[in-house]
């Protein structure tokens, strides 16, 4: 089996069901976007797939060995400089300090951090640079599955576009599978191969769409048209209605 297969997934906090009977599949090497109104359990689904919490019911099957998270808040250690933050995840391996740091250097270059920023502490970096550090930290452990929880929603529009292109490029270069949670349909349309729409709480799959256009062809016009087309689908529009 290649890719991710979620069957009848459910989870509840106390008596309150968060996710119910959610099923979808995501082929390896593609980018899926999980979209839905706030409170529909997107983050919970991501945590279950990444193994941070156990599924309440149903099953998650995949052959990925290294799932890794990128959160909305970059979650950098404030007392470590950018280099050591990127190398942090590698401490779970038996790599020595020198190797960890040189790997960190390479990844910081890959995500476009200038050498003079490598020794800076998080509070000395801008929001966009911090998110780049977080991305580099995630990639440093050589993951095969990227789980991204609204990683760009705290950034301004220009920065978000840069980071989106960077993400697509890295996914293509490194042959990754990625699942990105967002509440922004335009972002999903710009990035995703598969869009999975969750209904309001408790979350279940309301609709799913597949987009075949290459990333490079997705300009503003395309995004605008496609968003309108998706919203013409009653199930999608209803699920996202709370958002607008």
């Amino acid at each position, binding site marked *: 089996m290649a890719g991710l297969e979620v069957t009848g997934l459910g989870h509840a906090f106390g008596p309150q069901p968060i996710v119910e009977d959610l099923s979808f599949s995501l082929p390896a090497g593609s980018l899926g976007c999980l979209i839905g109104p706030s409170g529909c359990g997107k983050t919970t689904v991501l945590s279950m797939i*990444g193994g*941070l919490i156990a599924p309440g019911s149903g099953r998650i099957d995949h052959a990925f060995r290294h799932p*890794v*998270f990128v*959160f909305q*808040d970059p*979650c950098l*250690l*404030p*007392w*470590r*400089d950018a280099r050591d933050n990127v190398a*942090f*995840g590698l*401490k*779970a391996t038996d790599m020595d300090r020198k190797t960890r740091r040189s790997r960190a250097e390479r990844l910081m270059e890959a995500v476009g951090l200038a050498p003079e920023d490598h020794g800076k*502490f998080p*509070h*000395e970096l801008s929001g966009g640079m911090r998110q780049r550090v977080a991305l580099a930290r995630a990639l440093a*452990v050589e993951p095969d599955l990227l789980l991204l929880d609204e990683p760009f929603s705290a950034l301004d529009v220009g920065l978000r576009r840069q980071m989106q292109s960077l993400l697509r490029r890295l996914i293509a270069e490194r042959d990754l599978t990625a699942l990105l949670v967002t509440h922004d349909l335009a972002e999903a349309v710009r990035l995703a191969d598969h869009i999975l729409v969750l209904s309001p709480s408790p979350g279940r799959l309301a609709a799913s769409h597949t987009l075949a256009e290459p990333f490079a062809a997705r300009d503003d016009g395309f995004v605008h048209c496609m968003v309108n087309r998706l919203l013409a689908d009653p199930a999608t529009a209803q699920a996202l209605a709370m958002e607008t």
Partner: protein
Amino acid sequence: MEEGRGRALRALDYMWGGWGAASSLLLLTALWEAGHAAYGTLVLPSPRDTVASLWDMSAAGKVLPAILETSRNALGGFLSATVAGGILGGMAGASDMMRRLLQPIATLLLGIPAIAWVVLALLWFGGTGAAVSFTVLITTAPIVFAGAAQGARTLDGSLRRMARSFRVPATTLIRDVYLPHMLSYLFPALATGLALSWKVTVMAELLSGAGGIGDGLAVARVQVDTVKAMAWVLAVVGLLLAVEYLMLEPIRRHLQVWRREMPGSGDIQAGGF
């Protein structure tokens, strides 16, 4: 090597920073001298007489043993307070039950004046160093406790989640995530506690006659020798300043490198002439 040079330069910079502090202390000395001129030696001996007296007492071999005795009493109490306060505070921060159990006790202990503890300790232990160290322990432990509890309670949940998502080992979790955070709360508490422990020690020694600087002060009082009393005060102050600037401040700086200001920000002055 580059790093070593940078460190040496920073150390030199730090020592050079001592001039600013010296300037402030010398201005205080000027005020002291003016007070001496106004009120006479019996009330306020002159700075130079005081230093001379301290010098004479040191030459007579009285000062160094007293300082060592006082330091031993103070550090003994302080170290036990650090261990006890740190462990209990960490527990109180991590567990709600422990917080409910321990917080009121810590508040109560903080409210009891140190002088009351001195009296009780004298009754329990007699006029010995143990009485002094016990007083220090019981007065500084609540402060350390509060710092440790605060540090443990405010551990950032999202950082913990991030660390877990990378499946790093527990030692890394403690060393890279928990400890640096704890220290930023614990260290100020420790610094306050250490400074307090010296003052409490001198007071307890003065009342118990257990030797040390406090004992010297007691003798000076009996002899109505203001110069000697001031000389002992000078010795305590010197000790405190040494601990603060040679020990605490360098550690503080080392711990807070990550809070350094943005290069280029801060007060850039418009120049021109």
